[in-house]
């Protein structure tokens, strides 16, 4: 177990190293002159050249890359080209909003997904099951910006139950969380349904039934807790979906998180910020995948670590 964890940690570190290189190469190819951006349109050629020199943009590619990597290892993500701030400060100031949104989206997708999955499994092959499964298919086929805008239209513009966008109160949190969790609710409902059906067919359920336990009690005490376990282990994998989702959801709802930060940085070609957010997101995804792999055997001892 210890050896396995060590190996996985090492692998994760290598993957992150690879990601810094790939991102750096991609952003190196972006056809924009950062020095010109910083200096502004009216700056003289000399000023621009000075700024290029200061930023070390005249150095060979690998000199620039290893300088960046050296700084990164000391926790320094560089400075934004356009905002007078450290990238790490920008990310740190935006991270709490994104984390709040993601935690709330996880809660949303679990509540909806698990409930739908349980009902569908108990009503298997009946009307309720068919309608719920069609709903889950729709939810994995709907782009987040469409869901977001439609929710805004119905619940903010027409009904006025929630604010149209922004950040601050619980009311602001509801629609973005539902939008971000909508896709996951579809996946979880399908997984929960399969998992429930698996457990319902097992011997201990038959035993419980044979000894005369009430149906409701069997389901609440024996079936659901066992069926949930393999699904809880998947939560780590969601982080990958969320890291893409927040770019769209935060832009639709004006949510001040790292997704919005990334999107604004991409529009203004603020390379250090794009780089920083990509690395932070990738780290989160790698940690999420690692947690999912490590949690699976803890939750279900039949799964062995390879």
């Amino acid at each position, binding site marked *: 177990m210890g050896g396995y964890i060590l190996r996985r940690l090492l692998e994760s570190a290598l*993957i992150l190293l690879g990601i810094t290189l790939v991102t750096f190469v991609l952003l190196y190819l972006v056809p924009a002159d950062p020095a010109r951006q910083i200096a502004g349109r009216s700056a003289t050629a000399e000023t621009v050249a000075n700024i290029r020199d200061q930023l070390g943009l005249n150095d060979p590619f690998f000199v620039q890359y290893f300088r960046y990597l050296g700084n990164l290892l000391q926790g320094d993500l560089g400075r934004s080209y356009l905002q007078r701030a450290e990238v790490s400060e920008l990310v740190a100031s935006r991270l709490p909003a994104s984390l709040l949104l993601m935690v709330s989206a996880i809660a949303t997708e679990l509540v909806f997904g698990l409930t739908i999955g349980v009902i569908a499994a108990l009503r298997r092959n009946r009307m309720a099951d068919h309608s719920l499964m069609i709903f889950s298919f729709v939810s994995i086929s709907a782009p987040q910006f469409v869901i977001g*805008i439609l929710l805004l239209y119905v619940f903010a513009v027409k009904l006025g139950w929630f604010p149209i966008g922004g950040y601050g109160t619980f009311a602001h949190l509801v629609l973005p969380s539902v939008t971000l969790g909508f896709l996951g609710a579809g996946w979880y409902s399908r997984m929960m349904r399969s998992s429930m059906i698996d457990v319902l067919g097992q011997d201990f359920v038959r035993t419980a039934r044979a000894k005369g336990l009430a149906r409701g009690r069997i389901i609440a005490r024996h079936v659901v807790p066992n069926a949930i376990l393999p699904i809880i282990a998947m939560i780590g994998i969601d982080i990958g979906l969320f*890291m*893409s989702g927040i770019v769209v959801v935060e832009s639709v709802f004006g949510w001040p998180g790292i997704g919005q930060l990334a999107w604004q940085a991409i529009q203004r070609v603020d390379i250090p910020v794009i780089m920083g957010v990509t690395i932070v997101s990738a780290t989160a995804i790698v940690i999420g995948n690692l947690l999912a792999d490590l949690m699976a055997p803890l939750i279900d001892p039949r799964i062995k670590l390879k």
Partner: protein
Amino acid sequence: MTDMPGPAAPARRPRARLSGTVLGQLLRRPRAAFGLAVIAIMVGAAIFAPLIMPHDPFEQSFDGLTLEGAPLPPGGAFPLGTDLLGRDLASRLILGTRTSLIIGVLANGIAVILGAGVGITAGYFGGWVAGVLMRFTDLMMAFPALLLAIVLAAIFQPSLLIVALVIAMVNWVQMARVIYTETRSLTERDFVQVQRSIGSGHLRILGAHLLPHLLSSIVVFGTLGISTTVLLEATLSYLGVGVQPPIPSWGNIIFENQTYFSTAPWLVFFPGLAIILLALSFNLVGDALRDILDPTLKGRH
């Protein structure tokens, strides 16, 4: 003898024969049949777009705006209403079907070829080849897909081909992993070992002996992949880094008109519905294909 169940017996044969083909089995499942019907209608709309579009999709019609200059709601001469520039929404949606399908098929085709190629090569040769290829696949898995696609789209000037390539670059990974795992287990089986021992060339083993076994997975994940591709294209176009106006795409129609969504919701509702219907259809068909072609996979209940 009048109550003998006569019709039941002969009815069995044609049904059995029909269920022999994959298409027949798809059509017997209501969800998959619905998906196939939607796909057929959309393909038809894309091919015959010039014949069925009620108006010129690029014409900024004077009659297409109210006196105050606002877009027209659905009804009358413009069945689905008009957009901010007074263009007929129905015609733009029909032409947008082409964009979605072309990118869906093209991007997914590239992703399937790339993913299956990487998976087969890594699984068959194993060793350091697999090490390098699969580590690279792991790396791509850890990338936030949408950020990567946006950065790629920002580097290159977005054209239809570039958008397709960008989407393919982020979407091949899933296929590579599935095919890698399957090829590895196939490679250890006797029939491949026999071919190797009698001196068959690598290409012959890969093409004639491994590929046929992998075909069902490629078809299943290829179909499901079109859905992912359609959604990613819509999202990129919605963010303004995908298909560029004036070429209509369902995503960029929403992008162009979203500031008006509270007064002109049809400009979000109809394109959104089109995206969901197309992505849903490929998901339904892909899911049914998974049941039909590969009964060993999970999720059959």
